[in-house]
């Protein structure tokens, strides 16, 4: 008769653990000094851009000495010092300091972009929220969006008859689309979960919008704003070249007529730096509102 082999096993004897060598004494490592850390940061973050800049200027110097026409970095810098030493002079209605030119351009951008935001944000919301509306607007947006900003200028000049409103119109119509499309995308991307929270709470339409829909769309909205400002700044220089008056674009064109290439180069840098500052401001705003 086979005995069932199922036994209750005896508890295992406790075997003493083998002796281990004493742990090694930890070597004291001094914390890296603040100076050392700063030095590391300079090496990784400061050095490459500086080297890049030096390389660019060196290339520029080489090209200018080879071509003979292009002003050298040194000469351009001297002229830049002159230009910026008196930025707010006024010699005539069309001859003013660089400071005034920058401010006038910014003013036009501000108005055009402001109008685009005022109209574009609600429009974007409606397109994102109401499918019928989005389908209705889709062909119009698809056709108008790829149109070059400067193609809008003649219409603006014809309707408004003056340079200033025409320029603002061009900025408005060019910077409208990023705001509209990004806001609409933001609305469609609102997770159904957040909407469900609003539904369970049975919020009034206004509360639903202000507490749930709008905060959820803000990141997309700010992306649209950032793209929009970039487009607006790009367009103003081109538009001003064609319309004249006071502004960076007109100044560039005027300097071209005077064959003052150094001034044009300086203007290019100014346009770039101001554009960069505008974008950084919006990025700072976006970071403050991000979650």
């Amino acid at each position, binding site marked *: *008769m*086979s005995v*069932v*082999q*199922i*036994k*209750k*096993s005896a508890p295992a004897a406790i075997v003493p653990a083998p002796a281990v060598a004493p742990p090694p004494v930890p070597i004291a490592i001094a914390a890296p000094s603040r100076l050392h850390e700063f030095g590391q940061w300079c090496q990784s973050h400061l050095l490459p851009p500086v080297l890049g800049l030096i390389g660019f200027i060196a290339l520029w110097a080489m090209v200018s000495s080879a071509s003979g026409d292009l002003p050298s970095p040194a000469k351009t810098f001297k002229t830049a010092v002159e230009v910026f030493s008196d930025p707010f002079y006024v010699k005539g209605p069309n001859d003013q300091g660089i400071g005034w030119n920058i401010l006038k351009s910014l003013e036009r951008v501000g108005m055009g972009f402001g109008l685009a935001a005022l109209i574009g944000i609600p429009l974007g919301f409606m397109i994102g929220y109401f499918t019928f509306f989005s389908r209705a607007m889709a062909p119009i947006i698809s056709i108008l969006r790829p149109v070059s900003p400067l193609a809008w200028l003649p219409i603006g000049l014809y309707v408004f008859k003056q340079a200033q409103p025409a320029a603002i119109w061009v900025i408005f119509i060019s910077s409208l689309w990023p705001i509209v499309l990004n806001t609409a995308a933001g609305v469609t991307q609102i*997770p159904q*979960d*957040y909407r*469900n*929270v609003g*539904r*369970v*709470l*049975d*919020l009034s339409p206004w*509360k639903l919008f202000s*507490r*749930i829909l709008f*905060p*959820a769309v*803000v990141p997309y909205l700010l992306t649209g704003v950032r793209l929009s400002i970039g487009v607006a700044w790009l367009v103003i220089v081109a538009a001003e070249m064609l319309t004249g008056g006071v502004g960076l674009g007109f100044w560039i064109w005027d300097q071209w007529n005077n064959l003052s290439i150094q001034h044009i180069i300086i203007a290019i840098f100014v346009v770039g730096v101001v554009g960069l500052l505008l974008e950084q401001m919006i990025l700072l705003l976006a970071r403050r509102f991000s*979650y």
Partner: protein
Amino acid sequence: MDKFVQIESVHMVFNTRSGRFAALENVNLTIHEGEFVSIIGHSGCGKSTLLNLVAGLLAPTSGALIAGGREIAGPGPDRAVVFQNHSLLPWLSCFGNVYLAVDRVFGKTENRMALRRRTNAALDLVGLAHAAHKYPHEISGGMKQRVGIARALAMQPRVLLLDEPLTALDAKLRDNLRIEIDTLLRSLGITAVYVTHDQGEAMALGDRIVVMNRGKVEQIGSPREIYFEPATRFVADFIGTMNRLPGVAAKGRLSLNGGTDLPWSGADGLVEVLFRPQDVTFCEPGAAHVTGSVRASFFLGDRVRVVIAAAGHDVVVEADARHNIVLDQVVGLELNPERLLSL
């Protein structure tokens, strides 16, 4: 107990791109005040759809849904929902998230101080008073889920609807939170509907369990009824492990594969007998109801699960952890005749 939620002959059909999909078929369920009902089933069985119908987030294709004597017309804070992925609004702090709900329900009748007190009380209830100022991205998944529960409770709902609240959490956290939810809801005496695919959760938490399969209700009963008296094969297989063995019954005795016969109160003829792993014990092969050899064994800490190959079938036995199981060993199995089922 008063009937609070009545679900009568509810059908739910979705029109999808690939045709009509019947999510729910003829569901009937009554939930009483203060009752805790768990709805359990596979993914896609319709349990979340049923919850969304009670919440009012969906409207049924046909049938009636009544809560508190009135037809459910839409969502509302009286049937607060705890969502599967907490859906805390990320731009508000924990306090802000709960305050939004409190303001909606009580804002018209109470002043700011009272609303703040309610919010703090709700957060305190789930043990998160210290994290009120924190934002959702700064807290863990378990904490987020607790804030979701606090938000739902702060609305003082008549029914609390929980849609798989613990599914997204890890096992240990799930166990802890399950106990917290149980004690909390029992102390509040709140009516609750809890959807889960984890049968352990459903059995531990529910006063009654609704087992669903492909849009149909298979069985409604207490945890014990579901476990010991499954009404259908699906329920028997879905809840826990169920062993099956074929046998022949004659004149009140059942014989399984030629072993010792045992008393049988069911029908005569060929039967398939069902029994739980706890209702079978090891014994000498000679006197056993059925013999087999050990195919595998799993040590689970507090017990050992042994898979025995017997009469061409696998029988799972749960035994004391101290049993020393040897592979391919020939063993005898003794069944408890009072715990046999036949469906």
